[in-house]
């Protein structure tokens, strides 16, 4: 029995098709990533699977329970961290956790072992109001509250947005530990390095799933020739590269630009010459392997 089974789900808001005929399944203990631009349908999918809204057509089960007929049972068995801050700002850390435990008919003590590694980091501040916490601490509290009733499936909607890189890394270490406990995790994220940490990811655009594979498979499917290019004036370089014949796409990637190339029209040597003629200096061009972000950019630009 799959932990999550989705069959031909569609959802419309008025004229807008938020989800179009989406089908997929997630295995127990998998970390399954949803990647896609804003408006792609990720949050709508979360809301359907956590039984907060109903699809127009199709069906879905969570741990074998139907999202429509068995919604009450599902609500006891899933944990949900929605996109925005979901906790009570004027209650303390401890009060928030106690509240959620009580709502699910349990106590902090009963499932403390499950959240220990996460909660211990914020426990010294347990009398601090949730509204006064920094981004990283809020995420840890929200995760603790989503886990306190020992859910079988965890739904995380962009849990690390607004959190600094160090805290993000810590958060994903915690997710890996939860996976070991057998908890299934469906997570959406705008961070491509986090996409790499998932067992499988689904790329979503305009309400449809474009691709569902392991991160490595998605990278292996990338067939274009890709180079990294830099010069002293990166802003001008971006514009100049886009005008070069043979350059199919050009995107900024931190301290270099990535270009996909039609090799029958362009070689590294001829590109360097063209850039020199445009006045660029300190030019470095290298052939590189694609990253998951390159794959995303290619799909997004279609």
């Amino acid at each position: 029995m799959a932990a999550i089974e989705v069959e031909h789900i569609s959802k419309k808001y008025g004229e807008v098709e938020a989800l179009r005929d989406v089908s997929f399944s997630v295995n127990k203990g998998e970390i399954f990533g949803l990647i896609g631009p804003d408006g792609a349908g990720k949050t709508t999918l979360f809301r359907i699977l956590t039984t907060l809204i109903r699809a127009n057509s199709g069906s879905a089960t969570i741990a074998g329970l139907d999202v429509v007929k068995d919604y009450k049972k599902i609500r006891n068995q899933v944990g949900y961290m929605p996109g925005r801050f979901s906790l009570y700002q004027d209650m303390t850390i401890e009060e928030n956790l106690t509240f959620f435990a009580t709502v699910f008919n349990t106590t902090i003590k009963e499932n403390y072992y499950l959240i220990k590694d996460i909660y211990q980091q914020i426990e010294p501040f347990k009398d601090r109001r949730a509204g006064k916490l920094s981004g990283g601490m809020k995420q840890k509290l929200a995760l603790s509250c989503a886990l306190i009733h020992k859910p079988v499936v965890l739904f995380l909607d962009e849990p690390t947005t607004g959190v600094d890189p160090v805290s993000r890394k810590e958060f994903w270490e915690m997710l890996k530990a939860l996976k070991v406990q057998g908890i299934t995790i469906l997570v959406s994220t705008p961070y491509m390095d986090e996409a790499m940490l998932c067992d499988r990811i689904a790329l979503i655009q305009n309400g449809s799933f474009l691709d569902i594979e392991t991160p490595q498979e998605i990278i292996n499917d990338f067939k274009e020739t890709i180079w990294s290019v830099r010069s002293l004036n990166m802003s001008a370089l971006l514009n100049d590269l886009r005008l070069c014949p043979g350059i199919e796409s050009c995107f900024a990637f931190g301290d270099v630009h990535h270009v996909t190339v039609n090799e029958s029209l362009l070689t590294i040597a001829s590109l360097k010459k063209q850039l020199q003629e445009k006045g660029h200096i300190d030019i470095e061009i290298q052939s590189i392997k694609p990253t998951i972000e390159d794959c995303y950019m290619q799909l997004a630009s279609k």
Partner: protein
Amino acid sequence: MNENNIVIETKDLTKRFGHFTAVDHITFNVHEGEIFGFLGANGAGKTTAMKMLCGLSKPTSGSGKVAGYDIGKQSELVKRNIGYMSQKFSLYEDLKVWENIRLFAGIYGMKDKDIAIKTEELLSRLGFESERNTLVKSLPLGWKQKLSFSVSIFHEPKIVFLDEPTGGVDPATRRQFWELIYQAADRGITVFVTTHYMDEAEYCNRVSIMVDGVIEALDSPVNLKKQFGVNGMEDVFYKLARKAKRGE
């Protein structure tokens, strides 16, 4: 970028809340036309520092000047001469696109005729002509961010403060957003931006990293990477932020 013209300067800028020192004697300058990245872990004091620079919070001690005005004594003049965009609030969701532009432009004292002309230019540049009557709440997040940024510099301020402008936005939209930032910097607008995306730190001319209320590093990304002997800004950040003593 004009290194001779300093648009932000601080000297021992400090903010205390009771016994807690959120910002601890920070001293730095930002040059005209620079894209300056203001980084730090959650709880490091970034937001508190930015609030002081925007004239939203008074320093406990030390001083600062933004766009030539004293942040302690002339905070209202500071506010009038800067642009500001935050992830948490940017535009009025229940107003239309053109209404938001009109509202903010009016608040910044622009004349009606200028507002009308510039609104058309902006809508055309962003490709938003068909959306002028759309309520902002109906726009996808990436469009909101682009519109919000454009509104924040609509009055052509000397400096624009961006507080995590691309938080939660997908990779493609983020890049489009940064191209808008480049264009603004090319026009001479100084950009002061905080971000948690380390690839965006690379787009900045210089970057500062705050840890426990203090600026622990300030230099160009190239120099910072050399200084710490690493390949990426992410590694620079880890090396510094991991030393942080604040619970968070």
